[in-house]
């Protein structure tokens, strides 16, 4: 579904990603872990198409198409969704209107009829019920005055409503207490299907107690230095990033010697 090859990304002329290779198949859940500043959020932003992130080399192929050739809104209509680390407030625009507009753009792209207000309401209520989310949120302005937990739940609700093929959760666990974390993780688990791929970007292993990944990748200094299954996350929990860093630098040093 998603093939990332040798991806290099710069932000304001600073090299952040230095050659990422990643392959994600439908139905898989991948966790990208790494310390602050390792570039994991940059990867999420680059996939979703934020224009302040310059791709200087490499490619991202999504369902056989060149993702880098598409504008962010086109990527979204093709089924790429990102749950934001810091969801943005849009004063005066209700959540339901915002979501209805987005959903109908996506449906139009898929050649489907737009949902009218009634059908949309039905659709969104169904999803809210599935995720155990209070529908009060729908009539409030997008993220305005939402608590941290509400904002993240709102992101997951959006994911449920828009039904993406590829969902990237960018540090969705940050700033959540354990109860909120559980609600968000439960939501994500309910949205796991055999056709939908999910990439979970996180600093901490604890989210992965609830969302159990098929693959875990560790990012350091803009590279994926280690990949494995869920055990890798637990190993990381035990050893911490420092030990991985040490291993990585010794490997890097050896590599440099041999060159």
């Amino acid at each position, binding site marked *: 579904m998603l093939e990332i090859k040798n991806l290099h990304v710069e932000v304001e002329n600073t090299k952040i990603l230095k050659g990422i290779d990643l392959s994600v198949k439908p139905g898989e859940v991948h966790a990208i872990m790494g310390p602050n500043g390792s570039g994991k959020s940059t990867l999420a932003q680059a996939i*979703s*198409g*934020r*224009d*302040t992130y310059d791709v200087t080399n490499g490619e991202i192929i999504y369902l056989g198409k060149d993702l880098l050739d598409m*504008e*962010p*809104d*086109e990527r*979204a*209509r093709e089924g790429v*969704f*990102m749950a*934001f680390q810091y*969801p*943005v*407030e*849009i*004063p*005066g*625009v*209700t959540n339901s*209107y*915002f*979501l209805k*507009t*987005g*959903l109908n*753009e*996506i449906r139009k*792209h898929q050649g489907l009829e737009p949902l*009218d*207000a009634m059908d949309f309401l039905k659709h969104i209520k169904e999803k809210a019920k599935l995720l155990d989310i209070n529908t009060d949120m729908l009539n409030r*302005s997008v993220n305005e005055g939402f608590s941290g937990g509400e904002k993240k739940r709102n992101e997951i609700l*959006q994911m449920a409503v*828009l039904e993406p093929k590829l969902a990237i959760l960018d540090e969705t666990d940050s700033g959540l207490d354990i109860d909120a974390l559980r609600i968000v993780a439960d939501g994500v688990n309910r949205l796991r299907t055999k056709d939908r791929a999910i990439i979970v970007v996180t600093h901490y292993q604890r989210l992965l107690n609830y969302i159990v990944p098929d693959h875990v990748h560790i990012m350091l200094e803009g590279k994926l230095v280690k990949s494995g299954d869920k055990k890798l996350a637990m190993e990381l929990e035990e050893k911490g990033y420092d030990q991985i860093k040490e291993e990585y630098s010794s490997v890097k040093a050896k590599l440099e010697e041999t060159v």
Partner: protein
Amino acid sequence: MSNSTEKEQLQAEVTQEEKKIHKAKKKVTEKDTLEALGNREYKWGFYTDIEQEYAAPGLNEDVVRFISMKKKEPEWMLEWRLRAFRNWQKMKEPTWVNVKYPPIDYQSQRYYAAPKTDDDRPKSLDEVDPELIKTYEKLGIPLEEQKMLAGVAVDAVFDSVSVATTFKEKLAEEGIIFCSMSEAVHNHPDLVKKYLGSVVPYNDNFFAALNSAVFSDGSFVYVPKGVRCPMELSTYFRINSENTGQFERTLIVAEDSSYVSYLEGCTAPKRDTHQLHAAVVELVALDNAEIKYSTVQNWYPGDKDGKGGIYNFVTKRGKCAGVNSKISWTQVETGSAITWKYPSVVLQGDNSIGEFYSVALTMNHQQADTGTKMIHLGNNTKSTIVSKGIAGGVSQNSYRGLVKVMKKAKNARNFSQCDSLLLGDRCGAHTFPYVEVNNTSSQVEHEATTSKIGEDQIFYLNQRGISTEDAVSIIVNGFAKEVFRELPMEFAVEAQKLLGVSLEGSVG
């Protein structure tokens, strides 16, 4: 055709337009889009080829007499005009405003132009010049259809003379007078004499005096005691003739315990030269009466280099003359090269209420200096001001407002909120609030914010499948929502078409 079908049709057209725009703009970046939004072509720029009867250019007493003669006015009306003209000659054009324009040569303007059909007024739409009907159809507001639009009666002013007045009979049943000002002068002279100039005197200001001298036509509304006007009254103004200043004069009187809602919509064709529009609107609300006055103004704003466009210098004022009366102004201003106006309320009656809700959008080289004046004279009077200024391109957008509480106005209350939204970084937003409170029992609150449309907001909407252009519309719409909510339903579709902003919740 039903109201909803009409709306759907309009909605479909809008969607179609949006699709086209969307296709063309698919690849542009955010900056380009903001630019494009500012540079959007004026869609209503067409010219109707109808023979006109002109006054010679220039302004002197003979021209004033010529206008009065053409309109077959009684002597008292001519005298009033001449008094105004003589005053105007002694007045100086004000310069305190925060807009810039080259000096206007008042002697090169024409002050009268009427369709030739003046002598033979059409009795029904069938008799109206087909060219004219076409003009309205291009506007998307064919008169025939409009008749059927729920509760909207239209008094269309085409240049200077009313050519069609609809629904008059139905209103007459209620005792409501809704006609052109010219007709009112002939048929209701006592009312006109009593109220014309009672809120905006002929010597009020430079442009009001000019208007009083040469006003061409406009609307007159009279709602008798205890009558609730059963429909929204609506006028579509159009400036059509090149170099013809448009000087409407509108007067609305609501007797005790009556209610009326009046809609004013404006569109003008493109011209390379600037056109002056100096209208006067007067509202009088007596005891327990309520007047709601809504405007959607999209006069031609000039091209993207600032060439051409309307100078919209208008005096609008309402007087809450009676106790418990209420006057509410709602305006959505998107057009004109320069907008300079302050719809105001004089709160004379005890417990009277004045409201002002405004969205002013300026793009390219447009300039707007607009706001309101709330003058509290009576006890327990209340006023609310909500102003939303949106600036893009290299435009300048100013809010200027006065809240004045007189000594005798015990327990007066005012709340003002002025928000500005900037699209891009070459535009300007300014706020000039003036507050004068002359007693200690009154309370005045003022809030103001300025924000810039955020790249992160746009990206967030993009990431949910919404194009950048739509994202900007949605954000702007959200920003102006408090004001749109005040617009009558009949204007929802119109406003959407004119603004290119989707109106959340109120349509479809």
